[in-house]
């Protein structure tokens, strides 16, 4: 009897030390490294200079199984937490967004579409770290929500992922309302032979 109890406990221990940490390790490695698809690298996959610093971050990874057993589509969004890092008179947050298809079907197109938002005032602006990406608050000293324009990246070369890494910038940082920064991402995939696109959102 005692042997059975010990065996059961050992099995339970093994299950806990394999299944859960494997899940956690995957999520952690995805957050700590800017994702670069070495085989199908694109301009958008190139990490920015600001992405190698390991900082506290918040992230969301959402996925679902595509009907018909066609694999899964995952949307990832992560950014550094807190109220950003000061650089001059700006506050900055690193972010990464990606779309990942897991499955055996051939990908026709996979794209990631993202948008930042924050509460700002006094005509302050929020940008996504690339050109023409800004949104500005009104001239009022009252807080108002500012959304950046949407940005897009797409791979249609058979790659199973599409990602982008950069930093959000609030200018001037003093007109950013604490705790309101967010990044939202839509992942969308089209598989060869299937006329339907499949999409999912994540935000952090």
């Amino acid at each position: 009897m005692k042997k059975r109890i010990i065996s059961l406990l050992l099995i339970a221990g093994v299950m806990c030390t394999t299944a859960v940490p494997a899940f956690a390790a995957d999520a952690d490695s995805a957050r700590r490294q800017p994702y670069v698809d070495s085989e199908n690298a694109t301009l958008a996959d190139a990490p920015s200079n600001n992405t190698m610093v390991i900082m506290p971050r918040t992230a969301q990874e959402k996925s679902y199984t595509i009907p018909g057993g066609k694999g899964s589509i995952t949307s990832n969004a992560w950014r550094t937490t807190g109220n950003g890092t000061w650089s001059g008179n700006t506050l900055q947050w690193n972010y990464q967004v990606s779309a990942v298809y897991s499955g055996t079907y051939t990908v026709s197109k996979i794209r990631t579409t993202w948008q930042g938002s924050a509460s700002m005032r006094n005509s302050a602006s929020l940008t996504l770290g690339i050109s023409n990406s800004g949104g500005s608050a009104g001239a009022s000293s009252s807080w108002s929500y500012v959304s950046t324009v949407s940005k897009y990246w797409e791979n249609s070369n058979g790659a199973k992922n599409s990602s982008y890494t950069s930093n959000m910038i609030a200018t001037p940082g003093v007109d950013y309302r604490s705790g309101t920064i967010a990044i939202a991402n839509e992942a969308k995939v089209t598989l060869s032979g299937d006329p339907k696109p499949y999409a999912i959102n994540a935000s952090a």
Partner: protein
Amino acid sequence: MKKVVRFLLLITATVVILTSCNIAANDTVTNEIAPDVSCITEDENWLPICADGQIYIYHQYEEKILSYDPVSMQIASVNKQPNFYQFCFAKDNRIYTSGHSLTNNYSIISLHKDSFEKLLEFGAQESIFPLSSSEDTFIFIHTYYDEDGHEYVEQREICQLAYNSASKELPVYKNLTGLMITHGVCIGDILFFTAYIPSSNTYNLYSIGIGSLSDMPTLLEQELAAPELYEYNGELIKSTQSHIFINGDDYSKNSINYIIANSLIQIGPNEYGDLTFSATSLFDGEIYYTIDKIIDFRSEDEKTIILYGEGYINELSVR
């Protein structure tokens, strides 16, 4: 023996707590689940209503019909729900299809300047997509699914609808059923189309008379690398994943590609992640017009197109 049991219990509990803390510390939410379609109601699959002065246009890249304010030159309303999309015919903005990738309930929509009507509605286990059009004949891909979303590929069929027809029937091409057709183009009275071959990840090219519903298709070519087809000066234009071959020249493919007059019209993200419209002359390869933040364009005739963007409405004379 009790000490051994307690020790093992302690180790197990510690591992569970540590792994839980690891997830919490990184503030991550992870969900990998089958799509929860129970919360998606038909009411959520709405199309925007045009207020006074607003018009309907189509977001070419995001595949959404939206209402647009031509005064502010901005999007007035759009249903951003993921998986709810509308699909257009190339070069014809009268007919669209609309539906949800997970719950289906597709419909064929007749879109007007500031109103729309559903011409036909399909069930929860069907979908309908544009294939190609020729004057007033619109040709569709009609697919069927089981309750789990598996497509009955052997039932995929090609059917057509006559514009302004009172009939709710969709006559089917009898000998095309079961082919994994995804792209096509009408040239004259011929429909050219490609069918996907999963085993080789290539496409077969076929043709059939547009009005010849009972004919057998003609197999023209095998092992094409990409399914997209175009027409230029009455000639069939093929493509690879990355290039379009026109009159002996090859042009880089973009996300969305049309040939209008003597120009290659393209839409896709540029290096800064902006949606860019470009027009390239097929005479000399010159990119003679580009503009960012494009939403839609409407071809007034073969010489002029109207561009609708975020913050502009421009007219372009096409070369």
